[in-house]
């Protein structure tokens, strides 16, 4: 652990440095307040600091206040080590932002113990930061698959539909479902079902572009948003995803399983001005149609006007029976 010591008297500085080095610290020793401030306001600053009160250029409380005002990601634990021993001084020192206060000459074992207190606080901070970062990832992600969770993917869909309509581009939505997933769980148990879900998620994620979105919509149901997708190639891309699942067995602890998925596809250009909820309902109906026509296929959600205009062209590109 790096520690900064600030002490203008060379003899005290040397004694302190040597004492702390023996205790296992990596010591950075400086002799005036300005150098302390510089060292403690940079990004890879030491997280422990032992400060003298009276120093040339800037005194200890000034330095403390400057460090506290300068928000960096990590906390600096600052201890005053000073010959000022009145209660008023201690209060002023702590009020300026120091965490602890020791008087000179220091008692080695006490100094070490106080530093260990500082380390405990820093360790606690590390754990809190770690937990916060974990939460920051977990909150929008599905715990099982690591994909966007339902709340996030639906929110993304809202945004993307609005953007597509504004920019007169097409967004394609795929609502898809693992075929006969219930029998996987019933036959092999839920852990194998989880393995399948994770692998399906990986394959879906692997078959989209970096700016597309894949989310877990429900149990074995996934929602994919293909941004700025050429309407003519939407079916092809849906077919590629269907194949990504169907063409290779999924390896599980109960052996390889051959599984397929059904897809309901909706292109925003076919449903101009429809809200996300309407689009989801229509995609769901298309998915239901895919299931009804034997599964392992893609069905397009067609608006009533469109169905009259170009039914033949679309059906040609769709895998399986229309």
């Amino acid at each position, binding site marked *: 652990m790096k520690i900064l010591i600030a002490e203008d*008297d060379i003899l*005290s500085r040397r004694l302190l440095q040597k004492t702390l080095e023996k205790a296992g610290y990596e010591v950075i020793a400086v002799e005036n307040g300005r150098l302390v401030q510089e060292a403690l306001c940079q990004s890879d600053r030491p997280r422990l600091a032992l400060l003298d009160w009276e120093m040339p250029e800037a005194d200890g409380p000034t330095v403390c206040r400057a460090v506290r005002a300068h928000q960096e990601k990590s906390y600096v634990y600052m201890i005053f080590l000073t010959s000022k021993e009145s209660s008023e001084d201690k209060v002023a020192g702590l009020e300026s932002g120091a965490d602890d206060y020791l008087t000179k*000459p220091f008692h*080695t074992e006490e100094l070490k113990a106080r530093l260990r207190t500082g380390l405990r606080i820093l360790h606690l901070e590390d754990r809190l930061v770690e937990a916060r970062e974990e939460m920051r990832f977990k909150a929008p992600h599905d715990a099982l698959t690591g994909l966007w969770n339902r709340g996030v993917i639906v929110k993304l869909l809202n945004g993307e539909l609005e953007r597509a309509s504004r920019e007169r581009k097409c967004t394609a939505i795929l609502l898809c479902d693992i075929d006969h997933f219930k029998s996987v769980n019933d036959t092999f148990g839920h852990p194998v079902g989880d393995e399948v879900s994770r692998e399906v998620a990986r394959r879906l994620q692997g078959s989209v572009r970096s700016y597309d979105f894949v989310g877990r919509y429900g149990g074995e149901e996934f929602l994919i948003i293909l941004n700025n997708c050429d309407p003519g190639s939407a079916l092809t891309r849906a077919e590629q995803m269907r194949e990504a699942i169907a063409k290779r067995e999924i390896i599980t602890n109960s052996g390889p399983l051959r599984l397929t998925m059904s897809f309901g596809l909706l292109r925003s250009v076919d449903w101009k001005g429809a809200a996300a909820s309407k689009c989801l309902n229509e995609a769901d109906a298309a998915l239901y149609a895919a299931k009804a026509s034997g599964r392992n296929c893609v069905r397009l959600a067609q608006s009533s006007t469109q169905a009259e205009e170009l039914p033949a062209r679309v059906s040609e590109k769709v895998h399986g029976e229309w």
Partner: protein
Amino acid sequence: MGVYISKPIRSEVLKPELGQFPSNGKAPSKMTPVAPTDEGTFNLNTLLERVDNDRELLRELLEIFKEEFPRYREELRRAAALSDLPRLRTVGHALKGMFSNLAADRAAEQAANLERLGKGSETAGLAAALEAFEAEAAALLPMLDSYLAEARR
């Protein structure tokens, strides 16, 4: 000069004392004080404990002191002569820190006294305070010198 011990005597006493401590040993609680020094002037036990019985560090600190002190004393004398109270305060403070780390309690007290005078606005007690400090330094310096000579061997 009651605390001033002649070099041959201390040499015999000190040498085995210093030699018996491993550099990473524990506090020398059972060490008999170096006879017949005055612990108020200089407490070797306290200092040894502070440096964790590291003889090399002890030597280094004494070397630093030997090199730094004359400059501080010169500044102190000049500040007193010019009645430069802010300067007196700064130098007094630095010397207080130095002496207290060296376990030279009385010299630290005298330096603290000078610092205190420097904080005020009166110059009346200045000459006497400086004299008291000089007297304490005169008692202390030869002791530190001889310890340094021991430590250098």
